[in-house]
């Protein structure tokens, strides 16, 4: 799955940062709406559903992009346990970004709700009506959201660790392109230390 390239392809980087914003927004919208009885509940719910379907579509596109443009290899000297953690957390992120919208969609279907993405755009049900399935899927949606949030925290923490402490080019491989990397000043570190060019 990896290759000789040093950085992620442009489509991969665009999709990564776009989806990072969307998924993080989605997590906050989700916990916010279920904890609110104000008008926020209604308008957050109206954003939550179409945004979830958009994430589902982009996640499929992203998988295709990943297969076509394999990501750069992790640093050779990265300890094996960190490599394992990196690979496991990335696959967990992929699984969750695909599963969460599908679970949400199936959950509304099982609850007998029309799956409305707007005032008039309706998706067909993908699960038979069943209160038991609704309850199970609704709880899964909540617990998987917590797992996604924790995985996101680990991912963000690890990215900063690579960028600020190891300075091994892992973070910059998702921030900058192959050619421009040599010319552009690092952007992710604003402290006194700047990231040296890591390529030979």
């Amino acid at each position, binding site marked *: 799955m990896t290759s000789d390239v*040093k950085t992620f392809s442009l489509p991969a980087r665009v999709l990564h940062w776009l989806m990072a914003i969307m998924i993080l927004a989605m*997590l*906050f919208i989700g*916990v*916010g*709406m*279920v*904890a*609110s*009885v*104000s*008008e*926020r*509940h*209604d308008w957050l719910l109206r954003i939550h559903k179409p945004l979830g379907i958009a994430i589902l579509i982009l996640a499929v596109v992203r998988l295709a992009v990943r297969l076509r443009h394999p990501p750069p290899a992790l*640093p*050779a*000297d*990265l300890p094996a346990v960190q490599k394992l953690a990196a690979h496991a957390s990335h696959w967990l992120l992929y699984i969750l970004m695909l599963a969460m919208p599908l679970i949400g969609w199936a959950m509304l279907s099982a*609850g*007998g*709700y*029309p799956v*409305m993405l707007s*005032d*008039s755009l*309706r998706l*067909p049900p993908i699960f038979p*009506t069943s*209160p*038991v399935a*609704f*309850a*199970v899927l*609704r*709880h899964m949606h909540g617990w998987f959201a917590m797992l996604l*949030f924790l995985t996101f*925290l680990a991912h*963000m*923490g690890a990215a*900063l*660790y690579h960028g*600020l*402490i*190891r*300075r*091994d*080019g892992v973070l910059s491989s998702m921030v900058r392109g192959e050619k421009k990397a040599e010319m552009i000043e690092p952007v992710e570190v604003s*402290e006194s*230390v700047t990231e*040296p060019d*890591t*390529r*030979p």
Partner: protein
Amino acid sequence: MHDPSATDTPPKRHLGSWALIAAVVAVTVGTFGYVGGWLAPHRLTPKRIVDQLQDNAGTFAGYRRNHAKGVCVTGYFDSNGHAQAYSSAEVFAAGRTPLVGRFAIPGSNPYAPDSSVPIRSMALRLAQANGQQWRTGMNSMPVFPVSTPQAFYDQLKAQQPDPATGKPDPAKVAAFFAAHPETAAFRAWAKTAKPSASFATENYWSLDAFVFVDSAGKRQAVRWRMVPEATDAGSDVDNSGNPDYLASDLAQRLSQGPLRWHLLVTLAQAGDPTNDATREWPADRPTIDAGTLVLEHTEPQESGPCRDINYDPLVLPDGIEASDDPLLPARSAAYADSYLRRTSEEAHLPGTAVAQPKPEAK
């Protein structure tokens, strides 16, 4: 590709970086916790409202946390096309829309006697041919006691039975009403209201305002109510000593033929309050008869088709929208919480309440 100098230096050099990483993670977690309500314990949440309903009347596994006692009905809405001038919803085109409904009485106890409250409720789920739905929950009084979710919660809290007496503390109830003059209209209604002998003879009001949107996008604030064709005092069934006389009466009437209501839609004028369910609109507002609600069959809620429906008033078809009434999103949010609790109980998920057998009649 890895810069050796970075790892060869003592870790002390990275203290600032570690602190920065920890700070970024901590701020993200803190923000998440605040938005999710865990770090904002005073925010009114759906959970707190439903918990309070359970505190007041107990937990009855598998049942709705409010309006717990009820029966399912099925039938259709026969539109005459008159409301089409104001709403593009398919349900208002001339013709029939099938529905699954539910009659109920307020309160969280599914075994409460029908005479315990003077209010009856009607909920409907109309299923349009295009797959969109209109769900509505209506009550048999023209105004709601309070206008905000917080006041509703405070009222529940004031009415929580005192463990010593098993009854609400009159002083707390009086203090609540004194602090909430907007309850006056409801209290005036409640003073003369008697528990009716039948679901069939009641008017049912939407209470909350909604917005009709026509095919050109023009918006019109509305309220609606169901007006019964049946006007008699009650059926000939002897209901003395029967705590479930409403269900018996309904079944008896439906065995003789369908029951009908007219859907009357009241059109607001500029300045009429759309965000205050405690205030009626002036009586001279134009009203349109949008069609006839026809109910044909009834079934017990334990096995009927209404059991697994959440009558969320914000499940609306294109052409009907929520108004700025703050009760609407709170109803939607609290109903969703109640629905998750009772479906979780149906699924026997760990940590959920276990169903109790119906208590013997005393």
